[in-house]
């Protein structure tokens, strides 16, 4: 009896941790999915998340959580405007631009934080958004509290994937975007405004990356820490690959990456002596294996990361 109760608590903690880790990743990966299906590769996603996190912190200290999210979106969009200006405007290489953007965001947010909030003292903290329990669903044993007693943004994340799937697969705009990612020249010949779509995809990716940063600050950490994105931008890029550039695949891949992180926390908390670095490395190895064609061919959008 007690064993099963303990098991249920552990399972709930594991699920809750998975969902918590997954929320920002899902936003960031969705943005990367959109931009990559448009044939652009944004290696600077890490910088976008970082920009969003700092924007959220700045906004929330002045105008509360909701304002924090809007400044997070704005910051993400601003970073990606820079990306758009360099790649779409000047025809600069996407990989180099992305690398520079991450450096830029890391330096700018780190310096600004020290300038505005000082370096030595205790971290400035803001209240995180409270969990909102969904009436009936949150009462379901184990699953209920883990899945349906989360901050509001998590529910948005749940809705994001079906919405994306519908948009990609069932709308003309979604079809046009996919066409641009495969054969931009053909799409252009068919009358699709390629540059317009790519600009829009870039900005949406910025907004979603900004939200990801916002979630980190406003729903989880409650403060800003230098380089707090901690590689999530790169994880999101891996997620898009493992998810085979498909919304449902991205959702599953996000869960896989998040579950390993959650498992590792749980194991550490329980004092299980697990070589957790190896567990954390596993999803990356899986992604590599998937790229190599183990478990079916993985084909990126044909025009990905090319200049044309």
């Amino acid at each position, binding site marked *: 009896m007690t064993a099963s109760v303990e098991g249920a608590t552990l399972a709930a903690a594991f699920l809750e941790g998975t969902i918590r880790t997954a929320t920002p990743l899902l936003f960031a990966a969705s943005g990367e999915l959109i931009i990559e299906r448009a044939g652009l*590769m944004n*290696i600077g996603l890490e910088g976008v998340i970082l920009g969003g996190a700092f924007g959220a912190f700045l906004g929330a200290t002045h105008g509360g959580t909701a304002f924090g999210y809007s400044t997070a979106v704005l910051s993400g969009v601003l970073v990606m405007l*820079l990306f758009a200006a*360099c790649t779409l405007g*000047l*025809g*600069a*290489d*996407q*990989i*180099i*631009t992305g*690398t*520079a*953007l*991450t*450096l*830029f965001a*890391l*330096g*700018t947010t*780190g*310096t600004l934080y*020290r*300038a505005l909030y000082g*370096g030595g003292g205790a971290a400035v903290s803001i209240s995180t958004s409270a969990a909102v329990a969904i009436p009936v669903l949150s009462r379901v044993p184990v699953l209920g509290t883990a899945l349906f007693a989360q901050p509001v943004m998590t529910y948005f994340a749940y809705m994001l994937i079906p919405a994306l799937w519908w948009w*990609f*697969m069932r709308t003309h705009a979604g079809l046009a975007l*996919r066409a641009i990612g*495969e*054969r931009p020249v053909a799409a252009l010949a068919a009358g699709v405004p390629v540059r317009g779509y790519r600009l829009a995809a870039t900005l949406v990716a910025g907004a979603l990356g900004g939200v990801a940063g916002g979630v980190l600050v406003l729903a989880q950490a409650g403060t800003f820490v230098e380089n707090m994105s901690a*590689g999530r931008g*790169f*994880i999101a*890029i*891996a997620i898009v*690959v493992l998810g*085979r550039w*498909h919304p449902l695949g991205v959702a599953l891949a996000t869960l896989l990456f998040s579950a390993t992180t959650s498992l590792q926390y749980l194991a550490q908390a329980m004092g299980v002596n697990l*070589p957790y*670095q*190896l567990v*954390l*490395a596993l999803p*990356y*190895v899986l*992604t*590599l294996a998937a*790229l*190599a*064609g183990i478990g079916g061919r993985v*084909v*990126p*959008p*044909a025009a*990905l*990361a*090319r*200049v*044309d």
Partner: protein
Amino acid sequence: MSARRSQRLPEPVLRALFVLGSVAFGIPLLLAALGFDAGPAMIALWRGSFGSYDAITSGTLVRATPVMLTGLSVAIAFRAGVFNIGAEGQFLAGAAAVTSLSMLPVLGASYASSPVALVAGAIAGGAWAAIAALLRARFRVLEVISTILLNFIALYLVGYLVRGPLQEPLHIYPQSKTIAVAARLSRLLPSSRLHAGFLIAVAAALAAWWILKFTAAGFRLRAVGANADASRSAGMIDVSRTTTQAFVVSGALAGLAGAIELTGVTFALYENISPGYGYTGIAVALLARLDPLGVIASSLVFGGLEAGATAMQRDAGVPSVVVSVIEAIIVLGLIVAWPQARRMSIRRGQQLPTSEPAET
């Protein structure tokens, strides 16, 4: 009149002026805008980088060594049209291999250890890159993606090693035992941290320059990078073989950087052994316009900036990350100002045959 004269300035001079301008005006402006006291910060930056014998030899040159090699690694790869952004992981592979080697009973403490270690580091870095090279050649996997993944796998592996098999004997800190004194690279100058690795890096840059410019292998590499389709059509160059070789050599250089950093500076392995040397290498290579000789100069710029930034944080209370902003501005400025830096991936677009459309 002056405009015409400036047009006649040789291009490297323009680039040097641009970098100098970004540093001399960009940093004070940025700091002033953020409310820091720019004057003392700039003095600290200068004192920490080029202001004294000690700053130059123990600071700038020591910091320039790893990024000279990772910059070279990136330059070689990019010249061949290979987007290796995995120098970070290859660096770690090299450092980890050397650490493992130094734990061996007899060899680890002998004077033979250090040259063996450098070779081992280069092999490990090359092997780590070979995974991505193979995936590219066999399965047409974009190396941008695979090398990012491999960077993370390398980081986690090092994390595992320094808490597991390679952890120091007391099992307290997540780092390896320090390597034997005999296994360390020799110091070059009295009362300075400058080590033999700096000379190795310079020699590597000279060798890379010579190979690219005067050998058949170098010609093949440049031809494939400049136009893979034409090289393939010409029929005398095995494109896939050339890119794979360049990729592995690129990895070996980054691995060598890791081996040198470990045997010359840190003497022990730990997770944060590279504060992003692999990524800085990209900026170094771009500033050098992928020219190996240019890499020597541009690594001194970045080495100086990073050594100076440490002093700036210590003496003037200015966060050292401000240097990342300047590095990013230099890279973005280069992209904007020089068309070649802009259109690096045209080549790679031509190189990979168009794959079939993704299933939906």
